[in-house]
């Protein structure tokens, strides 16, 4: 009986957390009628932003998967000097404020930046282009994928990889036929979370890529730009991104191997701000 006040305290805390987190999201949907939501989503600004976001996110995500998967595999399966330093460096962009990412991208790839002259000589100009959006998205989303990917590969029983090799499979065959399928659930979850993070990218994009409808104005930038011009469009785009986020979460939760995997991988990443 003496524990009851404590239990009540715990229950109230959970209630407050849920109310605080869900109320604004719920309010978003209550503020706009479903029919208006759909009509606003087909407005020119919204459609342009959807196309820009989809295109840049898919290109960025392809790059992240292609390079991030082997990188995560190496970091997960080999032990070498500097490994933990490398893991920490990969995590750094996760805790970095997005505005810092934007100014850092300018410092590196801008016209007046570190590689500015080299890129200029090659006739390449990155700021204010869709390439710049892709850069910003890769910069903020790839650490998510690589970090969670390392955890996914680490969760694969090393004896299975060993067995594959002793049975005569080469390293690449072991990677493609054993490690990749076994880590598949975790990697898919990592991929979904990284994609969602990239889709929501705002700070680095608005600085490094600017905001131009149909070129660099992604969904989050369109919400910001429409806030004062047409609040309903901003609301509709916001509601749309909530739906996409819910879909991503459901995908992650419904991936079968993800459940036994959460305890390992969400530990270090749960505190990472995805604003």
């Amino acid at each position, binding site marked *: 009986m003496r524990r009851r006040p404590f239990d009540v305290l715990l229950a109230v805390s959970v209630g*407050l957390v849920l109310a*605080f987190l869900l*109320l604004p999201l719920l309010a978003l949907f209550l503020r706009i009628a479903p029919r208006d939501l759909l009509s606003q989503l087909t407005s020119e600004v919204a459609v342009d932003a959807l196309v820009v976001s989809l295109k840049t996110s898919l290109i960025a995500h392809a790059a992240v998967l292609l390079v991030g998967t082997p990188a995560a595999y190496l970091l997960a399966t080999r032990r070498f000097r500097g490994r933990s330093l490398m893991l920490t460096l990969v995590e750094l962009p996760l805790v970095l404020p997005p505005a810092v990412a934007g100014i850092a991208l300018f410092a590196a790839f801008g016209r007046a930046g570190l590689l500015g002259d080299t890129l200029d000589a090659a006739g390449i100009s990155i700021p*204010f282009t869709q390439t710049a959006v892709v850069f910003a998205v890769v910069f903020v989303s790839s650490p998510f994928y690589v970090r969670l990917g390392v955890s996914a590969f680490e969760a694969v029983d090393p004896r299975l990889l060993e067995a594959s090799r002793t049975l005569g499979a080469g390293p690449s065959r072991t990677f493609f036929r054993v490690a990749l399928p076994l880590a598949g659930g975790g990697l898919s979850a990592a991929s979904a979370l990284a994609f969602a993070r990239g889709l929501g990218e705002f700070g680095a994009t608005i600085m490094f*890529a600017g905001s131009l409808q149909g070129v660099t104005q992604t969904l989050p930038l369109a919400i*910001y*730009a429409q806030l*004062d011009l047409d609040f309903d469009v901003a609301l509709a785009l916001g509601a749309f991104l909530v739906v996409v986020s819910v879909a991503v979460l459901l995908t992650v939760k419904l991936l079968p191997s993800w459940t036994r995997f959460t305890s390992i991988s969400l530990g270090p990443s749960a505190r990472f701000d995805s604003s």
Partner: protein
Amino acid sequence: MRKLALALAVLAGAGCGGPAGGGDSDDHPTVFGASSLTDVLPKIDPDATYNFAGSDDLAAQIQQGAPADVFAAASPKYPDELYGDGKVDKPVVFATNKLVLIVPKANPAGIHSVNDLRGRDVKLVVGAAGVPVGDYTRTLLDDMGATDVLDQVVSEEDDVKGVVGKVALGEADAGFVYVTDVEPVAEKVTAIQLPTSAQAQIRYEIAVVESAPHHDAAHAFVEEVLGADGRSALSAAGFGLP
């Protein structure tokens, strides 16, 4: 249900974040000011709490019930709209401004006039339509018969600081800003004057917010801005006076 109501009350109180301020600083008003006033207003009253952003964003925040005391906007449009909705007292013109074209000191695109903006690969940054500096820019180009230079726009910024920053960084080739934005970045940019005949009348309006939490302080602030000290500070910052 009561818990939900409580949460709502907490949210309503905290909802507007940053500049809300405590109820204890009775004699210090919370001022929502246009970005272009960032440097000058604190010189007139260093003790007020400031929230600087695009006038349109600030108007939207006040419309949504942000606890502002004073609204100082870079255009008559937003204060007049809020006045029409009964959200602010009658606005008063307190300063005027004009547009200039700025280019990075190195001037990589070799721009010396609005006509040069038509060159190939010129990266022009402007305020977005609906943002005062963006609307003034479009009016000016329209008056000059030069709206085609808008084809060179690589970014439409949500406030004037975005335009200034990207040109000062040397990443954009040119941008239209207020003459009063040039001084803080004078070492990094060159200002090109624009024909007076094409200059739109840029008037700044100030108004006390109807639901001001610090009503007396708000009135005192507006008096100060309109008074001798305010006028000399505005003038020193490059503003015109009404």
